[in-house]
């Protein structure tokens, strides 16, 4: 089988991209031929592991006022993609975070298409489903609430990037109704996709996977790296509002036992985080090692007593959680999005009420106070990952989705 993957970012910057690279490796190990077409971001570099096309403007959006230029360039990118598809003749096209309607349309017309939904940008004008006015999680479908809640209308008047992008985004939203399979990673994501009018028959449920390790090796690492005389709390993820570092720092002020918080993070809010640490008087209690490679992050997992996932948006899945569990660590998280799918409350960690910092602090303390119970939770998490979130579970299901997509297209042609 030959699969053409379309993606915006082709470098390991976040969970979605890590999953992409892991998926590519897993597919190739099982004899699937992968071809990549990615946007020409300066950071996107060919890896040389497979056939890779870096396409100019593949994921273009009308970022400036020159709409005409956008149409010309977008159409040119669509044409380039069509040529690639003609040359490569893929059996199926797998779209990862890509929004440009010209490219999407070229893909849908040419071959059976599968779309992986990693975040709500497919059906949200401001990307994260967080209401612009109140910063609350948005429960509404794409529609008039986008206007009344201020996510769309002021932009239209001021004609900023989001406003300009609204029509292409809506076009992309409509086009995705024709995609053979929409891959959702969690029940929450499925509900959101259904809510936005996509056909249930086209939705394929496929939770993420992570690399798993030998139990003895994981335990040995913990034994080697665990700081016995320190209560270590770990956060891994992007430094941005939706990932909830702010809430975690606030929760940290409520924790009564001595602790050390490690933030393996980087992103738009990094400076704000440093400011907040000082403001809340947490200097000395919080260490920010910055962005780390996965190998190094594993050291932090091994060292930590608890991993906290304080996301405050509708997490599509949250790969960090299962990574922590794969490293036999208990997880404390807000009950939001896809997190309850993998976090069994009271067994592999604790769920706190979303955005309730006091509750989060209590749950963290609960883990820190009883290290034996925490260890048992970690082991249970490790087993849960081994059972549900491994490549061995993921890959056959993904191949099945590809086959279903091919079959669905065949039926339409007949």
């Amino acid at each position, binding site marked *: 089988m030959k699969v053409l993957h379309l993606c915006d970012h082709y470098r390991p910057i976040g969970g979605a991209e890590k999953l992409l690279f892991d998926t590519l490796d897993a597919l190739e190990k099982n004899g699937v031929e992968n071809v990549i077409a990615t946007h020409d971001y300066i950071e996107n570099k060919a890896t040389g592991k497979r056939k890779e096309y870096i396409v100019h403007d593949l994921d273009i959006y009308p970022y400036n006022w020159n709409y*005409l230029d956008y149409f010309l360039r977008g159409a040119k990118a669509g044409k380039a993609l069509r040529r690639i598809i003609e040359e490569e003749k893929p059996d199926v096209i797998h779209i990862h975070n890509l929004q440009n309607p010209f490219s999407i349309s070229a893909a849908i017309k040419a071959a059976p298409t599968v779309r992986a939904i990693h975040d709500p940008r497919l059906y949200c004008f401001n990307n994260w489903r967080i209401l612009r006015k109140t910063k609350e999680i948005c429960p509404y479908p794409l*529609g008039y609430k986008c206007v009344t809640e201020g996510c769309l209308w002021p932009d239209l008047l001021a004609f900023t990037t989001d406003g300009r992008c609204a029509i292409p985004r809506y076009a992309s939203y409509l086009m995705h109704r024709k995609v053979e399979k929409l891959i959702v990673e969690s029940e929450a994501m499925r509900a959101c996709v259904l809510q*936005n009018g996509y056909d249930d028959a086209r939705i394929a449920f496929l939770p993420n996977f992570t690399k798993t390790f030998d139990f003895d090796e994981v335990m040995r690492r913990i034994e080697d790296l665990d700081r016995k005389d320190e209560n270590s709390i770990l956060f891994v993820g992007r430094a941005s509002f939706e990932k909830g570092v702010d809430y975690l720092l606030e929760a940290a002020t409520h924790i009564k036992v001595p602790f050390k918080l490690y933030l393996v993070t980087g992103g738009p809010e990094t400076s704000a985080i440093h400011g907040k640490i000082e403001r809340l008087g947490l200097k000395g209690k919080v260490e920010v090692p910055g962005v780390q490679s996965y190998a190094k992050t594993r050291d932090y997992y091994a060292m930590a007593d608890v991993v906290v996932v304080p996301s405050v948006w509708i997490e599509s899945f949250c790969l960090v959680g299962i990574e922590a569990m794969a490293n036999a660590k208990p997880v404390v998280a807000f009950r939001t999005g896809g997190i309850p799918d993998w976090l069994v409350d009271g067994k592999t960690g604790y769920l706190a009420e979303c955005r309730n910092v006091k509750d989060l602090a209590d749950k963290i303390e609960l883990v820190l106070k009883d290290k034996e119970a925490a260890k048992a939770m970690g082991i249970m998490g490790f087993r849960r990952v081994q059972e549900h979130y491994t490549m061995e579970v993921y890959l056959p299901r993904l191949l099945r989705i590809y086959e279903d997509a091919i079959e669905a297209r065949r039926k339409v042609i007949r």
Partner: protein
Amino acid sequence: MKVLLINPPGWQKGSTNLGLCYLASSLAAKGHKALILDVNATDASPDAVAEKAREYAPDIIGFSLKTSTANAAFLLSKAIKKRYPGAVHVAGGAHITLAYGESLIQNPDIEYCFLGEAERSLIEFVERKEKGLPVDDIPGIAFRRDSEVVTTRREYIEELDAIPYPGMDAIEGFSFKDFRYPMITSRGCPYPCTYCCVGVVSSKKWRARSPENILDELKRAKEKYGITMFEILDDNFTLRIERAKEFCRLLIASGLNLSWYCHNGIRADKLDMELARLMKEAGCTSVALGVESGDPAIFDSIKKGEPLEAIVNAVKCIKAAGMKAVGYFIIGLPGDSLEGIKRTIEFQKSLGLDHYTYGVLNPYPYTEVYDIVKREGKMLMDIKESSHFSTELTIPFEMPGFSRQDMEKAFYLAKFQQLYQAIDSYEKKYGRKPGRILYFDFSPASRFTKNLSRLLDDYELDVFCFQTRSDDYFKNRAKWKITDLHVYVDTPYASGRIKIFLRFFNIFRKRGYDMVFFSIGTPQMLLPPFLLIVRPKVFYLEGEDGAKLMTMKDPEVKAQIRRRARELFFTLPRLSLSILAYPFLRLAVIGFGLFMYFKRDGKRVEFTPQGPKLKDMKKDKDQ
């Protein structure tokens, strides 16, 4: 036996401690277990290192000390001793070789010092310790006995080919990504330069590896680590020119296709045209020369043993061969002064170097300049507190003819020489000092830019730096006091950047500058809009061969603005269509908003502890 080798923090980031790698491979060859903790790279806290040491449970812990990392090493040693008292602490490296006495006396945690090269002495030490034999007569060590410090006879390794190749694998968490493979092809230097400690550390006797042996190491490194480039860190790579030529010929014949450079500096009088051409052919991209001073009197006084003309010829050879020439200069050599630095700068300009670096002298212990500074000058800090590769400008001493303030001024004069030159030429041209100056630096604000406005306190100086997103920047931003105009532009989109620039251009226009200085690297496309909006009377463009004074009336400036206008003209049809279509697009987008407003069907999603639920919005009270 288990040996833990520690590279303390305080040295250049991204460097590899090759000495420790040599020790690790020599130990491994004899069946001992060695692990290197590169604390300089990881910046781990002393407690974390101590914990690591406790977990690893070594029998011997070795520290590699340079003068600027010595204090950090002693702190680490103390922390480890507290948490894990079971190991013997030993130290080596350049600083220990120079100052083993005071290191042993002041730091009771360090029990033995290894002077000079320790590949053999450390192994003998480890083996004797393993067998429980006395170690006091091992060559090249120093230790405490009662109140005295005992040293044994030192031996230098003659057969360098016999030493196992350095083992980078022993460094914990070492990444081979974008790795420049460090190489030492010879050791020692016979010259008595007054500021240099190599003669004491690596001996005055120059010993070299055979070209075949060097090539074999490179081949293995390419196979094992997939290296694409290497750097030669020798103290004196080309001392025997024929050997260097032979190495280059072998490297060419091997077809290894590696790029390399000599940034540790070679001697100018040990380079001829043939060698330069061979080096270029063998993949060498740039060669550094230790020029130190362009003032003939000072140059002669530092006992380099070569004439200043040799530098001029060497630069010519390097450039004629097609390589980049790099020059290193020292501020504060005995006899140096602010005027002397000005002469050095003139000399450096005449050389036409591709890159140059000025650093303030660190008088290392037991060098001749150290004695001179002790005798005639004044140390402003313990030399161990100075730093070789600093994030701040540190000036460790001052001399009667060269005060601390002057040294600082000299450093900035050298660093921002084109800006100073521009100010001078402004004064000459207009007969008065420029009032308000804008320094436009397109690169991220460097550690030195932040001091620029302080140094130029006679002038009202604004510094504008383009800042890309980096954690380091965020950490330091609070400490910086450049000017209000220092700006951070983080939007990845061109339109956003243009918006920000236009806003700043407007501020610049209102402030009205007498002089604007564009540092090297300012994108040409930014200049026309800047000039048209701000319309500065005079501005300077920094270039390879000096800053160029320009005014709006210059034909070159006019030509550039015309060229941009022409480009604009040819894109005008498309642009005008866009402009014409703009109101309609606005209307379309607003219409789209209205369309969305009337799209009132749908369900809201609620996330309950039992899972997500969809509810009809028509029944919703909110409506």
